[in-house]
C-alpha cells in the first residue's frame, strides 16, 4: 500500500459522491473524478481492476464521510476515462478494466526516446573509444536496437526511467502504438517477446 496518498478536497466534499444535475458542475465533477482515479491507481501501482473491486475501494467509497459513488455513476466515470484513452475494458461484459495513468501513445513516446538515446549513446560511445570523432548528422539515424520486454521494464538500463516497473499489459499497448506509427515492431525472442526500434 503506497504511503500518504493525498486526497483532493473534493474527496471530503459529500456532494462529490452524487452525480450533479447541473451540466457545467457535472463536467467539473467528472474531470475531478477522472483525475482522482488516475492518480490513485498510479500511486497504488494498480493497473487493472474489476468494477466490483472499484465499488468497495476507498477510491469510490469514503467510509468516514459515509458517502459512496453509486455504480451507475462509477460507470459514467469509467466511460469518460475510456474516451480519453486511459481505460480499456478487458472483457465484453465490462466487468474488469485496464487503467493507464498515461495513455499508451504517451508511454510509447517515452520508451522510443529512451531507446534512441541509449543505442545512439552506446554506438557513439564505442566509436569514441576507438578514437574516432563523432559528429551527429541527423536525429533519426539508424536505430534497429532490440530489447526484450523484461529489459524495458526491469532492466538496469531503465532504472530511473518512468516506465521502469510498468505492467506488461500497458507496455504492450504502448509498443503497439509505436508499431502503428512504424517506429517499432513487436517480435518474439526465445520464450518471450521483445521489441525492435526503428
Amino acid at each position, binding site marked *: 500500500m503506497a504511503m500518504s496518498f493525498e486526497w483532493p478536497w473534493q474527496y471530503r466534499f*459529500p*456532494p462529490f459522491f*452524487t452525480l450533479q*444535475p*447541473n451540466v457545467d458542475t457535472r463536467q467539473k465533477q467528472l474531470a475531478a473524478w477522472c483525475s482522482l482515479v488516475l492518480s490513485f491507481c498510479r500511486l497504488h501501482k494498480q493497473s487493472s481492476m474489476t468494477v466490483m473491486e472499484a465499488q468497495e475501494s476507498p477510491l469510490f467509497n469514503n467510509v*468516514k464521510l*459515509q458517502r*459512496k459513488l453509486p455504480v451507475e455513476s462509477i460507470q459514467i466515470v469509467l466511460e469518460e476515462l475510456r474516451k480519453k484513452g486511459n481505460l480499456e475494458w478487458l472483457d465484453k461484459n465490462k466487468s474488469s478494466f485496464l487503467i493507464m495513468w498515461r495513455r499508451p501513445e504517451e508511454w510509447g513516446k517515452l520508451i522510443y526516446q529512451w531507446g534512441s538515446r541509449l543505442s545512439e549513446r552506446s554506438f557513439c560511445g564505442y566509436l569514441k573509444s576507438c578514437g574516432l570523432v563523432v559528429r551527429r548528422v541527423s536525429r533519426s539515424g539508424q536505430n534497429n536496437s532490440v530489447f526484450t520486454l523484461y529489459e524495458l521494464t526491469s532492466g538496469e538500463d531503465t532504472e530511473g526511467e518512468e516506465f521502469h516497473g510498468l505492467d506488461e499489459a500497458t507496455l504492450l499497448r504502448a509498443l503497439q502504438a509505436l508499431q502503428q506509427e512504424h517506429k517499432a515492431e513487436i517480435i518474439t525472442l526465445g520464450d518471450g517477446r521483445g521489441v525492435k526500434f526503428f
Partner: protein
Amino acid sequence: MHRRGVGAGAIAKKKLAEAKYKERGTVLAEDQLNQMSKQLDMFKTNLEEFASKHKQEIRKNPEFRVQFQDMCATIGVDPLASGKGFWSEMLGVGDFYYELGVQIIEVCLALRHRNGGLIMLEELHQQVLKGRGKFAQDVSQDDLIRAIKKLKALGTGFGIIPVGGTYLIQSVPAELNMDHTVVLQLAEEHLLKEGLAWLDLQAAGEAHYWLPALFTDLYSQEITAEEAREALP
C-alpha cells in the same frame, strides 16, 4: 326455492357469532397488552439501573449521551421531561439541558443585533464552548440541537432550518418564521441551477445542498466528517 343465509333467523345468528368473536378478540388483546406491559416495565427498570450505574459517563461523554437518549426514545422515556421524577433527580440530565438552553439563549441574544437572529450551528457551538470555559463538560452539536428542540417546545420562538448540509438556528419570534424558511429553500434550488451549489442525495433525510465556496472557507483541513455529522440530530 330455499336460499341459505337470508332471512331474520340467519341474520340473528350472524350477529351472535360476531359478538362472540369480538369478545374473544378483546380477551386476546388484553392478554397481549398485559404481557407487553410487563416486558416494558422490566425494560424500564433495567434502563433505570443502567442509568444510575453510568450516570457519570452520561454526564461527561457526549457520544455516550446520544446513545443513551436513543435507548430511552425506543421505549418512550424522555429523560429531559421537566419536573420531579427518577430521571431528572437521579441523573440531573434535565438540568444539563436546561442550563445549556439558557446558554444558547444568551449567545443568540448577544449576537442578534449582528446576525438578525440567524446563526449557523457551528458558530453557535463555538460561542457556547467559549462561554463554558475550560473546565466545563464537553458539549456536542447533538446536545445543542436537543436543547434547542426543548426550547422550541416551550414556545420561545426558536427554529432549526436545514441549510447547506448543516443547520441554521433561528432565534427570532415565531411570527416571522415561515417566510425565511421558504426563501432559504428556494435559494438553495436557485444556487443549484446557477452552478454555485452541489446536490447531496446521500445525507440522512431530505436532499442537501452544499456551497463549495463556504465549504472551503468555513471548514479547515482538520475538520473531519465526524464533526460534520454531529450537526445532524
